[in-house]
């Protein structure tokens, strides 16, 4: 995260700190007025249950990757010819191939169709919420127009976004390849996919 010590950031720090101080004092008064003593057995039980799940998650987070890597290694070589139901026509000029995109997508996101249009490859991606995201990939040496777009950073790469009532847009350029993602819904899916692809 880049954070310049400029005037505006100092102002926001002061503002945020003053706000939390004020809210904090009000909360302390509220706390005093509430009867804070007494047991809460059902809350204790819920916390215990959540913590158990969290511990299992932690345990499996280091045990499973080792075995998962091994299994993936075996499966990858055993199933080197991918099997999928998508309608893919042959094209000699695919910038990102299907395997790369499909492998990089977040969990529960799938490529349902691939089209080719002149020098563009168009992926139709179904998200975990069954929304559709269209990813267009094309080689381009020209500068990407960014007027009217908001700039964000995704994995240290500049990306540009726009949100309208009808659609959301995210685009970025890397190694002379332009990636454009659009969705009828929110920006979150586009950001999630871009985080994986960049």
């Amino acid at each position, binding site marked *: 995260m880049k954070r310049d010590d400029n*005037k*505006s950031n100092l102002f926001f720090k002061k503002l*945020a700190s003053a706000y*939390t101080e004020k809210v904090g004092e009000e909360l302390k008064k*509220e706390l005093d007025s509430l009867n804070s003593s007494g047991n809460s057995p059902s809350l204790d039980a819920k*916390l215990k249950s959540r913590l158990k799940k969290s511990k299992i998650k932690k345990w499996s987070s280091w045990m499973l990757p080792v075995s998962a890597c091994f299994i993936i290694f075996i499966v990858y070589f055993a199933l080197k010819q991918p099997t999928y139901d998508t309608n893919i026509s042959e094209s000699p000029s695919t910038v990102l191939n299907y395997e790369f995109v499909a492998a990089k997508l977040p969990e529960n996101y799938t490529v349902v169709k691939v089209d080719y249009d002149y020098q563009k490859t168009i992926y139709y991606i179904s998200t975990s919420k069954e929304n559709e995201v269209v990813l267009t990939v094309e080689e381009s040496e020209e500068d990407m127009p960014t007027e009217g777009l908001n700039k964000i950073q995704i994995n240290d790469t500049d990306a540009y976004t726009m949100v309208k009532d009808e659609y959301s847009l995210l685009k970025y350029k890397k190694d002379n390849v332009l990636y454009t993602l659009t969705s009828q819904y929110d920006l979150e899916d586009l950001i999630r996919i871009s985080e994986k692809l960049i």
Partner: protein
Amino acid sequence: MLIFLTFSTEFEKSKFEYIYDKYKKLLLYKANAILNNYSLAEDAVSEAFIRIYKNLHKIEDPDSGRTAAFLVVIVRNAAINILNENKNISAYDIEENDAESSFDLEESVISENITDGMLEVVDKLKDELKTCFLLMYAYDLSYKEIGKILNISESNVAVRIHRAKKKLIELLREENFI
């Protein structure tokens, strides 16, 4: 006592237990105010305490107002997430058209004095923007840390903070504070 939690030191354990005992009723009250359902409020508070447990090192003085505000920020976020899940609403709710030009922060602002009126402006921010803004600027958390606490991506954190600052500037200008 919460003997099922593992802590690296006795100090940490007693700190967490102290915070839990001291604030659980307040946090239940705050969560219930959002959820209007005591059982769901308990879910939110238990989730919040998991996050607090993982960020215990961020809490310096358990008795300070600053800590109280931090805990309430976390439980409010947990409660709103549960509320949105139950309503099938995406937590990432876009209202405004962000195609307006990106404003130049350096040229905006800046007042030396913080007034009560300015603090009321902060209150007007949407919860999801206010939460990220406060966690970053009041509690000095990184995008990564904020993302982990709120269970959102770093990019989302960045976008929300950007929007929070932009909205604050707009509101401060409307009220003639800057």
